[in-house]
């Protein structure tokens, strides 16, 4: 492919970088699912109902 630039696309380089993908794959579910969820449970009010 002669007309193709002799520079590899930045996307291709990013996709080849497993450690970057690894980092994103850890951070996104940890923040959106785990931390957010744990915070909601931890901060939920506790009932002090005594009768109906």
């Amino acid at each position, binding site marked *: 492919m002669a007309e193709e630039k002799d520079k590899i696309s930045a996307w291709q380089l990013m996709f*080849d970088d497993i450690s970057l993908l*690894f980092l994103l*794959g*850890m951070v996104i579910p940890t923040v959106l699912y785990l931390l957010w969820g744990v915070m909601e*449970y931890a901060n939920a009010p506790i009932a002090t109902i005594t009768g109906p």
Partner: protein
Amino acid sequence: MSNELDVRTCPITGKKVFKNAQNLIWINAVTAVVFILIGGIMAFTVAMTRWPAVHLLSADMFYRFLTAHGFNMLIFWIVFFEIAGLYFGSAVLLNSRLAAPRLAWFAYILMLVGAIIVDIMIFTGKATVMFTSYVPLKADPLYYVGVILFAVGALIGCAIFFGTLAVAKAEKTYEGSVPLVTFGLSAAAIIAVWTLACGAIIYIPTFLWSIGLIQNLDAAMYRLIFWGLGHASQQINVTAMVSVWYLLATLTVGAKPVNEKICRSAFVLYILFINLAPEHHLLTDPTLSPWHKMVNTSYMMYLAVLASMIHALAIPMTAEVAQRKKGYTKGMFEWLTKAPWNEPGFPAMIFSLILFGFIGGITGVTYGTEQLSIKSHNTWALTGHYHGTVVGGTTLAFMGLTYYVIPLIFRRNLIGKKWATAQVYIYAIGITLLTIGMGGAGTLGSPRRHWDVTFADAIIPFSFDPTVILFTTIAAIGGLIAVTGGAIYVGVSVLSVFFGRKLAPNEAKLL
């Protein structure tokens, strides 16, 4: 242990195969088959108990065996097979030595010991807690120890996979980017690390609670973190299964990815978003806010679903392009009708794709909305959903792959190719009936994990619409057919691995 430098060249693919990697693939794959055998026997007893006409086991045994069925199938069979797959995808496909073979053996032993402890606890009735082991239902502390050992072993396996990628890159055993299958397996391994980390985060405190060192565990928080293991482990399966589809397309019709960018982008979407899916279990839970539920269940705008849609196009497309190149160009579908339907790999790939997508995927996306979850949560329809994804999808794909791994890696001639091929069809029919039965009964309200849907012992009398029993019967018959297919799988693979003719070093025979 074999010499680190002991190596052969594969006559079919031209890849360099290191002996120690080969041995580790062998042991992990063979162990996986042992666990599918245990899980399969359990499947038979469970299906025969749910079927009111047979009602095989006592309640105690049923719940015990159901726990064993879940754990052996969902975790042991699949994770052992995946570890074998990870070593294959890194060492073999990249022409590399395995990063740390001794550590890999240690990881294997940890996993095996963990699995054996868990099974002993379950079968002796000390851990009748189901796959989910929701607190405050307490199992024997050793059960949690077993799970932790297994998870740590699997985590080390993932680390060895990443280590091998690094070794291969440093030693320049390949040029440019890694092959697509290896890329897909990297995605699976990344997902696995998060999954197993969730397992550690929840099972370590649960163990401490079981021996009395911690007094209170929030049951809802347990569910949140547990499903980070329980559901996300099935996302490893999805990702590994898609990689296996690409692999099977290559092995059966010589397919080449049409557009690497598209396929890899889809895997990246899995890495980024698929691990939000555990939320699907929490939709009808108290306390958790609707925002957490909606953002997570939509996997950030269904981007992981988009990824599956992309694979659903890309995989048949690669097969079609490859077939057309071979000259099967008549009409729209000659490429499909002239495909190798008489060998196990191709039908396994196609049926796996259809069962995963049309039964597992569609039910998953619909049940995974806040309101429809109210209609389906904890019903048998859910069980139908994941028997579509993880049994019809992952297990069927892995079964198909096994028949190629036997000559490729284990260098044995497959005994009973016809049986192997028939097995794929039988299994697919069985799972289709099973999932339809479960889905139908579940939609009418039949609960999952239930010993007696006729409610003979209940204090307040209740009985279902007879249609429920009809669907249950369909599921049980489907289960029987699938178990038969599974038994043929175990038979063919065990016979071939141990008694198949040894292939000569230069013999380029696949099937």
